[in-house]
Each structure stands twice: as C-alpha cells, then as structure tokens.
C-alpha cells in the first residue's frame, strides 16, 4: 500500500521561507553565492524543519526555536566597533585575532596582522573563487548547515602554509545585539601538507544579547598536517548557539579537537569528521558544563572511510539545576576501513535531582578487522569521597570543587600543558565558582 504524505508547513516554516525570499538578494555575495544559498536552502524548502520525532534533532527543536523568532540579519541589529572587544580572551597565548561582531568581521579580512605562512581572505569571495575544493564531509541535509549556507553573511578562509614557527590564530565571535538577530558566519580552514597549526575559536557575549548564532567551519587538514582546534563557548544564556565543524583528514594527518561548552541557553555543537587518507587520527575532547535552564547538545559523527585510522572521543559533563546535556556520538566504519581503532566515552556527573544527561553512543561497523568501543556513565558526586575530604577539615564547597575539578581536568590535562590548557582550566574553575555563588544566592 502506498500512503501519500503531504508536507504541511507550520507557521514557523512559512515565515522562515518568506524571510529567506525577502533577504536573499540583499545578502552579501554575487549570483554564484545566491545559487549556493538557494541550493543550501533547498533542504528546508523540501523538508521543512525537523520536528522532535527526527532522532538527530529530538532535543534541538528547530521548529520551536524558529517559531519564536524568524531570522533577522545581524547587520540590521547593528555591528559595533573594535573597541568593544574583550581585552584578553586567551591570556598568555601568542596569537593573531580575527574578530567578528554579530557575525560580521570587525576589520576587513587580510588586515589583521597574521603569522607567517597564513593567508586570509573573506569566505564569500574565496568560496566563489575556488568552489568547494577541500576534502571534508558533506553532511548534506543537515538543517543547521542548510540555514548556515542560506543565510551566511561573512567569515574567513584561512590557508595555513609552511612557516618557521607554528602559527596560532584565534577566531573570535562576539555577540552584542540587543534586538533579536541571527548571526550567521562560515569559515574555511586549510592546513597545507606537512604544516602544524593551532586555531582557537572563542564565542563571547557582551551583556545579554538576544542572538541566534549559527557558525560553520569547513576544515581540510591535508596530508601529514596537524591541526589543533580549540573552541570555548561562553555566551550569555540569552544566546542560542549552533556551531558545525566539518573536517576532512588527509593521509597521516592529525586533528586534535577541544570543545569547552559552558554558555548559551541552548547550544548545539556538531562535528562531522571524515578520513580522506589512510593512517590519519583524530582526538575529540569535549567538556559540557550545563547550569540551570541550559541545554548543551553535542553531535559527533566520525566517518572511517579508509584503512588504519584512529579516532578517540572523550566527553565529560557536569549538569546542575534543570540543566540538560545531550551527547549523540556515531562512529561509522566503512567496508574499506580495515584496522580502524575507534573509541568514544561519555561520562556525566549530575549535581541535582532534576539535571539530565542523555547519551546515545552508536557504532556502525561494516569492516571485519577493526577495534571499536563505546561507553557511557552517569552518576552523582560520591558522598564517601566528600566525607573523607571533609573529615580532614576541607569544607563541603571546596571538597566538591576538588572532586569536580578532578573529573573535568583529566580531559584538559590529557589534551596538554601550556597557556591554552591553563585558559581552559581557569574557565572551568570560574564556572564551578559561579555555580556555587548562584546556588547560594538561590538558597538565600
């Protein structure tokens, strides 16, 4: 029996399509870009937005999110000036900063002083000039990516070539819009053959901006190249934050990812990673700190397409109040990807009776000579350990702090030592301190 289905659009979807049709010609870029925008938006026109019955979007309810507010170009909300930039986002780290306010570059691409070997161009120009030449997973049909492709207004294309010392570049996204606004940016990073580089991504708010942010990265780590990619999201809770990373690795390439997610009322970090060469490796480390009323959705999909590649995924969560963490991890091993070593582990600590940690680790294995493992744990702080620490004079607050730091810092210490790790440690420390202050205020 054939059942005819009709896709009935909701008011939110209709408003979204109308909004796109209204602004598409006013958005930056030429006719090729408009074609690319239409192509990306095609997924939304055809399928609408996913409802909560769509597994991947069960916890990020795009229909509800766009129902409340149709897209508004961030530029309309008014871009600020460079004077508004926070003073030191990565203290002690020698780096070049490329800053965006409400999705728009604060200075023309190329004008920032860049390290030797790094070439920077506006994303929209680079995308039209070279097409999508890099290797990274398509993730076609993902609605957040479709919205990014349709509405993107700015971004950078970084090409990182050989240099005497390893370049470190920070991409800073600052939200300041006090009126409802969508900030949509797309970046491309290419790390050339044999080159080692570090990219830091920082998401911050000034005040309580009412921003819906959608940032996407297209990353190509070429043969024998190594990229360390660290993102730290500390938005105000008034912000809704989506970030998508699509990364492809060439032969023997290495990608080291760290994602510290501690802000935004609702956030979703999507990493789609594919191996396009043999013997490559990726390590993903994520810390989600979720306070009362926040939701942090983490979606990781690793595609083992070729032989001898390793992937590791370590995810740690601390959730408090009515905070909710979601982890959806998928390792796919294709028939040609023999000798794959794929591992993922998610561990959660719930600090209140109402906090939630939802974990969905998945393996799809089509090759027969592979090693894959996944695991998930969740629990509370161990009262026996707290009592032991307190019996030595350490107060409850410090005892909890010691245990939570131990749980979280293990992932940072595993990532490495130095100024970048120190910044991550102190951000975690600040969150733990703030959590106590908030809980004390609530109790008072």
């Amino acid at each position, binding site marked *: 029996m054939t059942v005819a289905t009709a896709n009935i659009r909701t008011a939110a979807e209709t408003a979204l399509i109308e909004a796109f049709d209204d602004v598409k010609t006013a958005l930056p870029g030429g006719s090729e870009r408009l074609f690319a925008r239409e192509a990306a938006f095609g997924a939304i026109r055809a399928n609408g937005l996913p409802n909560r019955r769509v597994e991947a979007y069960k916890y990020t309810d795009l229909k509800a999110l766009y129902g409340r507010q149709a897209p508004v170009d961030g530029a309309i909300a008014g871009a600020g000036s460079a004077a508004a930039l926070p003073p030191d986002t990565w203290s002690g780290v020698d780096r070049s900063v490329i800053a965006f306010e409400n999705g728009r570059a604060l200075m023309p691409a190329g004008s920032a002083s860049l390290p030797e070997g790094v070439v920077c161009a506006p994303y929209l120009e680079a995308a039209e000039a070279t097409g999508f030449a890099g290797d990274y997973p398509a993730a076609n049909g993902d609605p957040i990516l479709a919205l990014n492709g349709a509405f993107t207004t700015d971004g950078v294309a970084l090409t990182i070539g050989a240099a005497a010392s390893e370049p470190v570049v920070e991409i800073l996204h600052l939200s300041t819009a006090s009126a409802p606004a969508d900030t949509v940016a797309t970046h491309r990073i290419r790390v050339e053959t044999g080159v080692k580089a570090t990219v830091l991504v920082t998401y911050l708010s000034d005040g309580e901006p009412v921003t819906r942010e959608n940032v996407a990265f297209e990353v190509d780590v070429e043969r024998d190249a190594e990229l360390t990619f660290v993102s730290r999201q500390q938005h105000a809770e008034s912000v809704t934050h989506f970030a998508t990373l699509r990364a492809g690795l060439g032969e023997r390439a290495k990608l080291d990812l760290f994602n510290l997610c501690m802000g935004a009322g609702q956030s979703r970090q999507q990493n789609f990673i594919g191996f396009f060469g043999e013997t490559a490796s990726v390590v993903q480390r994520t810390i989600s700190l979720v306070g009362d009323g926040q939701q942090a959705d983490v979606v990781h999909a690793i595609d083992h397409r070729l032989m001898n590649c390793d992937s590791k995924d370590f995810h740690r969560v601390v959730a408090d109040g009515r905070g909710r963490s979601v982890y959806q991890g998928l390792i796919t091993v294709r028939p040609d990807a023999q000798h794959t070593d794929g591992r993922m582990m998610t561990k959660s600590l719930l600090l209140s009776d109402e906090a939630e940690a939802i974990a969905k680790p998945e393996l799809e294995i089509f090759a027969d000579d592979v090693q894959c493992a996944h695991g998930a744990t969740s629990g509370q702080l161990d009262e026996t350990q707290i009592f*032991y620490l307190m019996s*030595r004079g350490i107060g*409850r607050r410090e005892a909890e702090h010691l*245990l939570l730091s131990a749980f979280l810092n293990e992932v940072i210490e595993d990532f490495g030592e130095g100024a970048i790790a120190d910044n991550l440690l102190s951000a975690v420390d600040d969150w733990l301190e703030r959590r106590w202050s908030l809980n004390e205020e609530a109790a008072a």
Partner: protein
Amino acid sequence: MLNIKNLHVDVDGKEILRGIDLEVKAGEVHAIMGPNGSGKSTLSYALAGRDGYEITEGSVTLDGTDLLDLDASERATAGMFLAFQYPTEIPGVANMTFLKAALNAHRKARGEGEISTPDFMRLVREKAGALDVSNDMLKRSLNTGFSGGEKKRNEILQMAILEPKLCILDETDSGLDIDALRLVAEGVNKMRSPDRAFVVITHYQRLLDYIVPDVVHVLSRGRIIRTGGKELALELEEKGYTALVENAA
C-alpha cells in the same frame, strides 16, 4: 578533652549505639575493643560526623565544644582526626594537592594565612620521610592504587601534618604486616604528647603491644561493658570476647 555522655546512634533506623559514656583526658590513650558488630566503627563515624549516623540522644564535646553542632569539616578543624579503617580512594586529586588543601583549611580556621609552597614542601618532606611515604605516593592520586600499608601510612602522615588534638584510629592495624604495623605505631607514638589524646579502636591486642594504652574499654552491643587497664586487653586475648559478653549479659 573528649567527653561522651549517653550517646545513642541510629543507622538506617536501627539503634547501633545504646548509651556510650566515655571520658578521655589530654595525654591519654584509650583502646576500644570488641567483637564484630559491637558498634566500634559506628562510634568513630558518628564522632567524625558522617551523614547517615543519626544521634538520637546524648552529647559529645571536645574541649568544651559541642561537636554534634558541627559538620565533618568543622569537627576536623576543631581538632578531631579519624584515621579510617578503609581510606577512600579519590582518583584525580593528587595527594599533595589534598594535603595542602587540608592544611590550609586548618590554618584558615585558626585565622592564619595559607602556607607558602616551600614551607609546605619542607613540612611534608620531613613528616613523609619518617613514615616511609615516597615522593611517588605524594604525587599520585589520593589513596588510588595504594597498597593496604601505603594507605594506612598516608593516614598517619595526614595526622602528623594536621596535628589534631584528638586522634581516633579505626582498626589501623587491619591489613598491615608486622613491619608496617611497627612503622605506623612508631608514627603514632611520636605524636603522643600531654596535650593530645588517642582513641584506638581494634579487634586485637597486638596493636596495643606497640601503642600502649592507659585505659581499655570493651564495647558490646552498643554499650561499654567493661573498662580496665592495659591488662584487660591481655585477658581478652586469652579468654576471648564471648565469656566477657556473656558475663555482662
């Protein structure tokens, strides 16, 4: 120093201690002996302030301070120390980090500033050397993967660094070989002083050969049924608990 009057303690709604009276003066060492299930560990946890040990009646003071009004950390900074029978493993918290946090908590309670790192290192090195606690043990996660002997030596090291007024040793001899027992006992004896008291909880007389008590109490079914000098321990070793418990019943 320690004054316990008519202490009743419930665990999971069941009365375990049924009226303990105990007075320990400064400078004294009291041993509490008794068969399994007599309430020895309950007494130590109730004194240390562990959750789930409900005091239904009675009072406990340490140098006049009402301990029952204080949480576990406040009891510790008031001068109480419990050496655990089974020290808790805490992965990820380095032993040194923990020792420093504990010492600074005591200093803060006394209104002193935090100890400087060189002074702390000097103090730990001096105390650790005497107890054969290696640098490796100090760097590792607290009690994690320590052998039974290492855990107990680490307990005594904490005691030596925190210098409490009252030390309760809960079956510190369990799981120790003879050499380790001697080392631990030496550590304890070194700390004996006219202004410090000890309560040593044990099943066996053997520990009391090394840490000689002034007073021995026998605990049975939640009550102290007999009190005597150190010779009481020898009598117990010879006759066993059963005869004594039956006589008391």
